[in-house]
């Protein structure tokens, strides 16, 4: 067993290691702005919750920052035009987060320069005077969702004032191909801390914890600002699985989130570091969430940090990076361990997209040569939530729904580690997802 202990090898249960060397060096590369595309495809649903209704129609002119979709429900989060231009149609397109077709607003970019629309702003120096409810409402209006990947409405999480004791900022950046969080800490520390302070005000928590795997002194400016703001800096062991909200709560507070509950139920509200930044931009600059930083990785370019408009087709990003889209065979959106590969290059980015990885035909999927399970138990050893993926796979294959319930298939956090360590190259993820769905259906 090779014990590699450095910041690119994350230690998991069972003595396994997640190799994150693919992003080596990316933390030193500043964000590079990708020019606005000719056509933006903005999904009306970019959050967990019911879809929005379009507020514009074909032929309408829209200005950057203008709200173009919203809904009535508490879980709805509005979407805004990322560019100034004309709505060409409202149609369905492949949604990378849902893995299915979803309704979107197609906006053709105009050539003229018009100042973007901005929301009403708050004064960071008079934060204590602002009503928490007004701040929460402003976060919603800015279209902020959880930017760690799930897309949970940020304003909903920020409404747990009665339950929250701790605000945990997840800056673990434990996905093997995501480096944009590190850059954010490096480049925008002031906004980040301002966002955290606003979140703490909204939640009225007794303690703020900034969880990072960075070593002490790695981000001096950020550390100093956090110290001044009274935010505790928690240096967490380098581990991929601890990036999950529930496991991070366990790691930091030694409290388990009960099955079927969420971190706020045990007094902890967890937000991604990028969400804190988006909150700051929304509140203090009046800038709705229409762009974000991502990490792009391909073997031709290596890792790169990009700043991209939401709704930008992947094709545009590939071309900007000098990669002809027809030389790519697999395009993975989000984490290499958790994100799906999209069916074509015209799939647009959504708010929760943190990474894109392009693989050419020479970089074949390691899972192509699947073999019979040898029941080595590696998947059980590595599972961070202590379920038994191999037993779940066997029960799922046999359609034993009762057994799936006894095996707690619903507790899977979809981290992909079981497949990652499987010597037989079995993608257990698919079995586990089906098992979860079966258990949840009852």
């Amino acid at each position, binding site marked *: 067993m090779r014990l590699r202990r450095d910041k690119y090898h994350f230690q998991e249960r069972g003595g396994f290691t997640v190799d994150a060397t693919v992003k080596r060096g990316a933390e030193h590369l500043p964000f590079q702005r990708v020019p606005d595309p000719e056509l933006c495809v903005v999904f009306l649903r970019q959050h967990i919750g019911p879809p929005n209704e379009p507020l514009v129609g074909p032929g309408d002119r829209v200005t950057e920052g203008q709200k173009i979709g919203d809904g009535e429900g508490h879980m709805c989060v509005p979407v805004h035009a990322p560019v100034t231009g004309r709505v060409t149609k409202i149609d369905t397109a492949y949604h990378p987060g849902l893995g299915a077709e979803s309704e979107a607003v197609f906006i053709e970019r105009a050539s003229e320069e018009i100042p973007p629309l901005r929301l009403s702003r708050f004064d960071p120096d008079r934060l204590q005077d602002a009503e928490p409810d007004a701040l929460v409402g402003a976060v919603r209006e800015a279209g902020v969702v959880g930017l760690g990947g799930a897309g949970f409405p940020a304003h909903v999480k920020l409404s747990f004032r009665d339950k929250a004791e701790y605000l945990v900022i997840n800056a673990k950046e434990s996905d093997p191909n995501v480096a944009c969080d590190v850059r954010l800490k490096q480049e925008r520390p002031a906004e980040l801390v301002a966002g955290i302070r606003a979140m703490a005000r909204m939640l009225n928590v007794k303690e703020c914890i900034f969880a990072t795997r960075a070593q002490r002194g790695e981000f001096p400016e950020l550390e100093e600002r956090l110290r001044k703001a009274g935010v505790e800096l928690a240096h967490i062991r380098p581990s991929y699985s601890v990036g999950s909200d529930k496991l991070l709560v366990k790691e930091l507070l030694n409290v*388990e989130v009960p099955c079927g509950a969420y971190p706020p139920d045990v007094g902890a509200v967890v937000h991604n570091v990028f969400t804190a930044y988006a909150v700051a931009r929304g509140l203090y600059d009046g800038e709705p969430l229409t762009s974000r930083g991502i990490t792009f990785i391909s073997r031709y370019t290596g890792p790169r940090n990009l700043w991209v408009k939401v709704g930008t087709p992947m094709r545009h990003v590939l071309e900007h990076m000098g990669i002809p889209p027809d030389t790519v065979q697999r395009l993975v959106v989000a984490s290499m*361990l*958790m994100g799906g590969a999209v*069916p074509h290059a015209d799939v647009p980015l959504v708010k929760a997209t943190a990474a894109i990885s392009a693989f050419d035909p020479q970089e074949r999927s390691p899972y192509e040569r699947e073999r019979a399970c040898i*029941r080595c138990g590696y998947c059980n050893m590595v599972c961070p939530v*202590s379920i038994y993926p191999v037993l779940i796979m066997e029960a799922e294959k046999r359609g034993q729904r009762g057994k799936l319930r006894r095996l707690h298939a619903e*507790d899977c956090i979809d981290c992909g580690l079981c497949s990652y360590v499987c010597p037989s*190259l079995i993608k257990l993820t698919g079995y586990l997802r089906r098992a979860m769905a079966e258990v949840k259906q009852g």
Partner: protein
Amino acid sequence: MREEPNLRYISELPPHVHSGITKDKVMLRTFLLMCIPALAALPAMGLSALAHIAIAIGTVLFCHYSLAYTELLSKGTTSYKSPCSPLVAGMIVGLSMPIAAPYYATVGVAALTMVVFKWLQGRLCGRKYLNPAAASKVLLLAALSIAAGLGTGMMFYPAHLRLDLWTAAGFDEVVAFYDGRSALSGALSLVLLKDHGWIGGASGLAVLVAGIGAVLWIRLKWRIVVSLLLTVGVLAAVMSLVTGGSMVDRLAFHLFTGSVIFMGFFMATEPQSTPLAEGGQYLFGTALGVGTFLLQQLNVLGGSIIVLVALNLVTPLIDTIGRRRPYGHGGVR
């Protein structure tokens, strides 16, 4: 953007990266680790040990490629591509044979392992419920016992039937057998270098080193080994206290014979036929220890494989108990 995308990518589920630990690598590592006791057997047991191992591996590989060729002829493709797993099976067969066994017995066990308990069992049951090498050996020795008498069936050591392990005097005779065979004392000979019994157990120490290497390098199911050795050790110590005599000798004899230490590390941990749940692994190892010790006391030395096969059969049941509590269910992570 195009209305109809003309470029289709491979759309698939995550993950898209892998740790690089493949079945072949695990098998190759296992094989390399087993070379340690195999090499240790040479000075103790001579070239005959090497011949047994070579015959076992050769037979298994012959069967492997024959099956692959048959599959290729009938289906046009074969699932028998890599020889890594047969290599391990062959090595286990070779190391689990008693040095006194005739070569035809090794050929028989190796062929049964590959054809009946690996290939046929996999085809009929969907997976291997019985440890192939152990089941083959049990089957062949049972057949030999019926055909040629219990002496032959007793691993070709009929003298074992006359041993008396229930008294201090009887046990001292057993140790004296080892005392007289080399410059080493009985206990040291049992632990370091013996020319008797399983080839894989020629050096208990070498097995221990290889076994610890396997725990670290291939993550074998160490709970089974620990509980097996602890159980046998405790029972041996109790027996020594009850009957009198040297406890060191008792421990060396019961723990360091090949049928305990080699079987414990490299057969009882065979992944497919042993429990997955942690609690189940402890239970499995403990039951294996109790059964092995009792059979040793009853003079069925090397009988651990009978207990192993019996426990393999109840592994699906054992797998239903002793599971960890998942996160969020009040368990300790």
